[in-house]
């Protein structure tokens, strides 16, 4: 039926364009919200969700209570939801669509399915149509039939689906998010909305988490805080630690920074009624013996915590560390990487080499004290001789007259790394008339290659 026909029948009809993207986002946010029942939530097509509640039902007072709670909450959020619960995903899928609200007891899948039409089997429309054309209209009709002709005529998928629904074949749902090895949560009768309260609660949850971590002799490297808002919105807040941590005070500090940075972007709305703290990346935690005064020997602990706090607030790239490498290219010789990355690398190097060969230190060459992230192009109107230093250059719209120059120092590209043959660079140390010292280079040679060489300013000297 076209829109015109529909309008003719119902003049007051409201027409909205289909927006599959928005539908998808809504489904994902619902999946996020369903995290409160189980960490194993998977999307099912465009309009369904699978929840694997194995081992979770008793937390909500049994399967029936869980289902009722889920339905009630969805209803209050304004969704019309149909749910089914069974011991196999296939049967649950069918139950949700053909017998909403029903719980299929283990063992009774066969009885339940045999009455249902073929659409309950999650098979494509063509198979279904051809089955119906030969008079097989219910699941029960094919359930007891001979298998070999069915496979031969309708493909293996039909029998596979049937076996999955009946539990003869194992079917795992693939959760859309990785499952945290450890998580603790608290349901709140009275929703929280103040950030201070959330922080305090994080401290309490972390204290519980610490017990679990201690049992596993591990510390958390990455922590995630899930805030379930009453109206179904879920906020995920993650922090990372450069070393494994498990002290509640530290965890709380990290979340304090993160929450402060997020500030108003967390909309508490009517409050959060479930708060969960999960450690989704853990690492071996070697406990150290403190001395008699209780002071643990200084091993960079304080600095690591400081770095974690800064990265929690300002992002991963807030704390940088130079990573010296054996390379002649200036930007590669002392590139900066994030602190956590460098710590990992150092730890790896220590394990691997056992202190035999420290990272080879680059030769002490005359290098600028500041280097631009990307070399800045400069205009050079005139050079003394074709391959000489410039007499003056224009950088950032100001003309600089070169008083003295040293060089060139030729740095060839690393042909074993780069794909194309990049032009060579001739570096000059120049001083302008006011005494500023710069590091310039000419990319390419005059006359040698087709494109004219370009000049860049790469760094400044003291």
């Amino acid at each position: 039926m076209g829109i015109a026909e529909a309008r003719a029948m119902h003049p007051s009809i409201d027409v909205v364009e289909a927006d599959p993207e928005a539908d998808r986002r809504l489904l994902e946010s619902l999946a996020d919200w369903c995290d409160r029942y189980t960490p194993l939530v998977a999307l099912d097509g465009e309009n369904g969700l699978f929840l694997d509640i194995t081992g979770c039902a008793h937390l909500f007072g049994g399967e029936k209570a869980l289902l009722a709670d889920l339905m009630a909450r969805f209803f209050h959020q304004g969704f019309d939801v149909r749910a089914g619960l069974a011991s196999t995903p296939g049967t649950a899928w069918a139950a949700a669509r053909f017998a909403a609200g029903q719980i299929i007891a283990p063992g009774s899948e066969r009885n339940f399915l045999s009455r249902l039409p073929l659409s309950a089997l999650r098979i494509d429309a063509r198979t279904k149509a051809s089955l119906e054309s030969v008079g097989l209209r219910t699941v029960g009709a094919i359930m007891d039939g001979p298998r070999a002709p069915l496979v031969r005529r309708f493909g293996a998928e039909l029998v596979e689906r049937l076996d999955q629904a009946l539990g003869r074949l194992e079917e795992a749902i693939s959760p859309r998010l990785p499952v945290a090895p450890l998580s603790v949560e608290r349901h709140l009768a009275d929703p929280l909305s103040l950030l201070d309260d959330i922080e305090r609660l994080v401290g309490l949850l972390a204290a519980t988490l610490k017990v679990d971590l201690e049992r596993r002799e591990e510390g958390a490297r990455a922590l995630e805080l899930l805030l379930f808002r009453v109206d179904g919105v879920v906020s995920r807040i993650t922090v990372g630690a450069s070393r494994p941590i498990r002290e509640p005070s530290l965890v709380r500090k990290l979340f304090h920074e993160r929450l402060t940075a997020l500030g108003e972007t967390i909309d508490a709305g009517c409050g959060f009624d479930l708060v969960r703290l999960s450690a989704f990346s853990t690492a071996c935690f070697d406990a150290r013996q403190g001395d008699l005064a209780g002071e643990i020997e200084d091993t960079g602990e304080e600095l690591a915590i400081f770095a974690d706090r800064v990265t929690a607030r300002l992002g991963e790239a807030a704390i940088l560390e130079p990573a010296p490498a054996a390379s002649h290219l200036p930007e590669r010789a002392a590139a900066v990487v994030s602190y956590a990355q460098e710590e990992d690398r150092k730890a790896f190097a220590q394990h691997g080499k056992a202190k035999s060969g420290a990272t080879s230190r680059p030769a002490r060459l005359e290098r600028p004290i500041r280097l631009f992230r990307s070399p800045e192009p400069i205009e050079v109107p005139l050079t003394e001789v074709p391959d000489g230093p410039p007499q003056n250059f224009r950088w950032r719209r100001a003309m600089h007259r070169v008083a003295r120059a040293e060089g060139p120092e030729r740095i060839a590209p690393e042909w074993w790394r780069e794909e194309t043959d990049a032009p060579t660079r001739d570096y000059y140390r120049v001083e302008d008339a006011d005494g500023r010292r710069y590091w310039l280079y000419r990319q390419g040679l005059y006359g040698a290659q087709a494109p004219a060489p370009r000049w860049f300013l790469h760094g400044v000297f003291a």
Partner: protein
Amino acid sequence: MATSAVARDVVFALRQKIAKIEGTLPELLVSPSDNRPPAGVLVRRNGVASARDFFLPTGVERLDEALGGGLPKAALTEIHGTETRNAGAAAGLALCLVSLMLKASQKPGALVLWIGTAEIFREAGLPYAAGLDWLFGLAPERLLFAEAPKPADALWIAEEAARIGELAAVIVELRGNPRSLDLTATRRLHRRAQDAGRPVLLLRQSAESEATAAPVRLIASPAPASLRHTVAGPLAGSIGPPAISVEIGKSRTALPGKFILEWNPDAHTLEERRHSPEDRVAVVSPSRSRADPQAAVGTVVAFRPAAEPAPGGEPSGEQYPAHRRPRRAG
């Protein structure tokens, strides 16, 4: 004599008390009754008497004198760069001071944290580890950088970093005059530095001088380097060790001063260059008959321009004074 000795003691005690209350100027407190050379007891703000190592001597006599003994170690020090393109000079001065501090502290493995906003790192370049190693002996393992999106974040990092024992020095680099960097902010940084007993250097590029809690403000600008020294003498046309022109903008003693400092990358010391860069050698002899063609572009700093020649191509009197003229025989 006994009475006057008592009176002097009273005066001494009172002075000590005043110094404790005011506490700003670390004062040399020597009991007048003993004739020993001053032991050098200094009183700090919170009344804690500390030893001589309150100051870091820069090694430049005149600068130390003008600063009243050197740079205060446990304090905020402001270093101003006049323009963003002079960032090399200002950063160089800060690194000279940090290098001196590390040398004086003798604490192995202490780190240096350099905090900057994303803006200044984009405009003036990131500190380059290989260059710092070459010039100031700061190994890459001892460097940490922090890049903050906004000046307020940079100041927050600096405050947090000032209390960390593993950092020997903290450099905060900001550009311009952000609103978040007011007197209160500098006072907070200064207090943190005092409590921790470690320096915090506030590097301000292209900023106006504002009210600050830092006891010392130095203004750095670039200076032409001297020539490289070789066995055969200065090498013409070469660029020698870094030179920085430093002016005292604020100090406890309020003595003015302008110095050209040179960093010795081998000994890691600061020296003052007294002589103007006259050891520059003129590579080309000046043109005699016509005006210098380069003169229109800028001032020639390498040498004095030749005096104006007299009309008709005659050498001027200044160039050939009469008493140097070969005497005519007969």
